[in-house]
């Protein structure tokens, strides 16, 4: 047990700080309020710059353009990025989930073909997992791929695809053996989104935006060399992607949560409750303190999980704790904000009276999705029950 940064960790942090000092764009403030469709090329350019400094994917092995950063260094990376309010990178899924999956399961040829362009944001990736009839029960998905010579022919529909509208490539889970048990007949294909027969439609969500897409595949031909991992072993490949999703996301979110609670504490001096500033109202103080404490515990859980991953080599089902913890905590945080703002909480970004240009009313609605996306809280609890506690499978 030693939570002080090691010499190497300090060097890593200082090198990053120096790089950010010289390279952080100064005009992000003018872009951040714009719709992502408008700012996307800006984000691409920022990622390219990070890549030139070898900062785009610090967790990746050195030979693939990363820094082989330890989990602690990754946590430092996200914290530093949040502290200087750096713009996000364009290829979120490629860098965070799909790149690592290709590095773990891909052939040498696939790694050479795909990895450099993920890093440089030349090719944006999306993830085709969920279907209208396969959400929590992902393994029951029906999009099928039939072998025809040296190509697979894909037919089906995917839903809840982030970055589908801008995706150049997609990690797609398909059924290649309809007769095998549901987990054994799946394969992961890497699909060029410009292939004939791919259609992408926006999916409008409760916040009013279209972060996600629906994707339709009509007789899309995919070269057999684009199978990732083994044919009919797609479940294992997909699960490793999901583990990356659940395992480390908390480390990226923590600095943002911390910023939100700090802002809320600031605002508690301005908003009034029961005749005095919320900062002086006993009940508001209790709620702010509870939230502050839970955000700190989220950080500590993450650090402990990192130490376990370092010891065992891979993210495990304990990542489900993090997923439940951050998603439900984020909803509680937004609720506390709403209670503090009273009637002002409902005002949207366009309203001149909105608090912080509407980020809180947006956050209140957007966080409803947190306990659903990347595996519902119910699925996460079943994963803990079965895979961590050893209870019989309930589904």
């Amino acid at each position, binding site marked *: *047990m*030693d*939570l*002080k*940064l*090691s010499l190497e*960790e300090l060097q890593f*942090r200082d090198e990053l700080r120096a790089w950010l000092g010289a390279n952080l764009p100064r005009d992000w403030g003018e872009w951040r309020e714009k719709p992502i469709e408008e700012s996307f090329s800006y984000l691409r350019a920022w990622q390219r710059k990070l890549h030139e400094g070898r900062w785009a994917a610090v967790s990746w092995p050195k030979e693939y353009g990363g820094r082989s950063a330890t989990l*602690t260094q990754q946590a*430092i990376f996200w*914290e530093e990025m949040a502290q200087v309010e750096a713009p996000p990178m364009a290829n979120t899924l490629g860098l965070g989930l799909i790149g690592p999956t290709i590095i773990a399961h891909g052939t040498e040829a696939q790694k050479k073909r795909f990895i450099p362009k993920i890093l440089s944001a030349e090719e944006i990736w999306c993830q085709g997992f969920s279907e209208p009839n396969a959400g929590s029960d992902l393994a029951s998905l029906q999009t099928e791929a039939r072998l025809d010579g040296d190509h697979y022919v894909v037919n089906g529909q995917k839903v809840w695809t982030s970055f589908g509208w801008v995706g150049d490539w997609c990690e797609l889970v398909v059924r290649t053996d309809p007769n095998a048990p549901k987990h054994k007949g799946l394969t992961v294909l890497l699909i060029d989104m410009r292939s004939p027969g791919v259609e992408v439609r926006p999916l409008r969500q409760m916040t009013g935006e279209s972060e996600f897409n629906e994707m339709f595949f009509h007789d899309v031909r995919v070269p057999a060399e684009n199978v990732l991992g083994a044919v009919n072993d797609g479940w294992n490949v997909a699960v490793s992607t999901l583990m990356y999703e659940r395992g480390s996301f908390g480390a990226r979110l923590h600095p943002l949560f911390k910023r939100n609670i*700090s802002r809320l*504490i600031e605002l*508690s001096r301005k908003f009034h409750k029961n005749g005095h500033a919320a*900062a002086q109202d*006993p009940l508001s*103080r*209790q709620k*702010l*303190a*509870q939230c*502050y*404490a*839970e955000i*700190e*515990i989220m*950080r*500590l*859980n993450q*650090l*402990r999980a*990192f*130490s*376990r991953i370092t*010891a065992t080599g891979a993210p495990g089902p*304990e990542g489900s*704790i993090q997923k*439940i*913890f951050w998603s439900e905590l984020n909803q509680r945080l937004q609720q506390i904000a709403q209670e503090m703002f009273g009637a002002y909480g409902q005002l949207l970004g366009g309203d001149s009276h909105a608090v912080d240009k509407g980020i809180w009313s947006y956050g209140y609605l957007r966080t409803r999705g947190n306990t659903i996306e990347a595996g519902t809280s*119910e699925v*996460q*609890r*079943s994963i*803990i*029950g*079965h895979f*961590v*506690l*050893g*209870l*019989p*499978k*309930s*589904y």
Partner: protein
Amino acid sequence: MEFGLSESQEFLKDSAREFFAGECPSAEMRRLMETDTAYDAALWSKITEQGYTGVIFPEAYGGVGLGKFELMLLMEEAGRALLPGPFFSTVVLAGSVLEAVGSPAHQNKYLAPICRGEVRATVAFVEAGASWNPRDVQLSATNGKLTGEKFFVTDAAIADFLVVVARNGVFVVDSKARGLKISPMSAMDLTRKLYVVEFKNTPVEKIGSGTDLPRALDIATAALAAELVGGMQRTLEATVEYAKTRKQFGKPIGMFQAVQHQCADMYLETESSRSAVYYAGWALEENSPDAATAVSIAKMYASDAARTVGNRGIQVHGGMGFTWENDLHLYYRRAKASETAFGDATFHRERIARLVVDEGVVSAKHA
């Protein structure tokens, strides 16, 4: 950075678990809780032989000199066994206060015998108002004598001396001093007895001022939270085991999501409490600027979580969980006592608010 146990820390934790399981199994714990003081001299000398009575104190006084983080591991295992008797009162509480406020002479006189396992002791702090805020202490010594009452004093009847916190300092009172009356309070937790202590012109010896008291209280508070983690862990394991073996509708009840998800939440609450407690132990050991916040976070979270984990565990056990013969209620009773001791969750949330809302002492991050 490494948020995990070193080999020697693993060893300490494993051997403590083995020791408590061997020397104080459930049957022995139940035998002791039925006695007046829950104290057993033979068990105490075994605890002493392990070095536990001097675990965090300097070798100069016969201690072992381990850190506060190690104390958390030891207390976690003591909590898992629901260790009855005055270990917490004597070593963790009285020992920490003596170390924090006493002179070397006082430590030779009072702390060294604690380390050697020769005496039992406790701290009298709370008064009729039941407040853990040092500002609410009313008792005051005049001319070396004390008059008044202290409430909720743990293990007072078995203590050889009491450390008393008064407005004008910290004092030691011999248990045989004149004018001292110790009366039992009948409380839920049978394994750690509570008393009202009355002083009537009782002679006391001043050992120091209250200035250094908060740190000692923080150590005891974190240690109590660690003990709660051990109790939660035991409750979780017993509940998961029960959910695997108990069958209804032809299936183990742990197969039903309504039951399984309770267990998952127990796991989340237990692990989150553990993260908070381990960090508090580390922050205390390192004198980190956010140590007080870390202690309050740990106590606040563990106080609420221990009650919730207990509720869930009893519910999953069904009728069995409601019986006297099942140990769950004994952990549940301890959880209630520990929830209020050293400030409940509400108390610590207000303390956190003072630190982070009023003063803006944020976490040390990567210190």
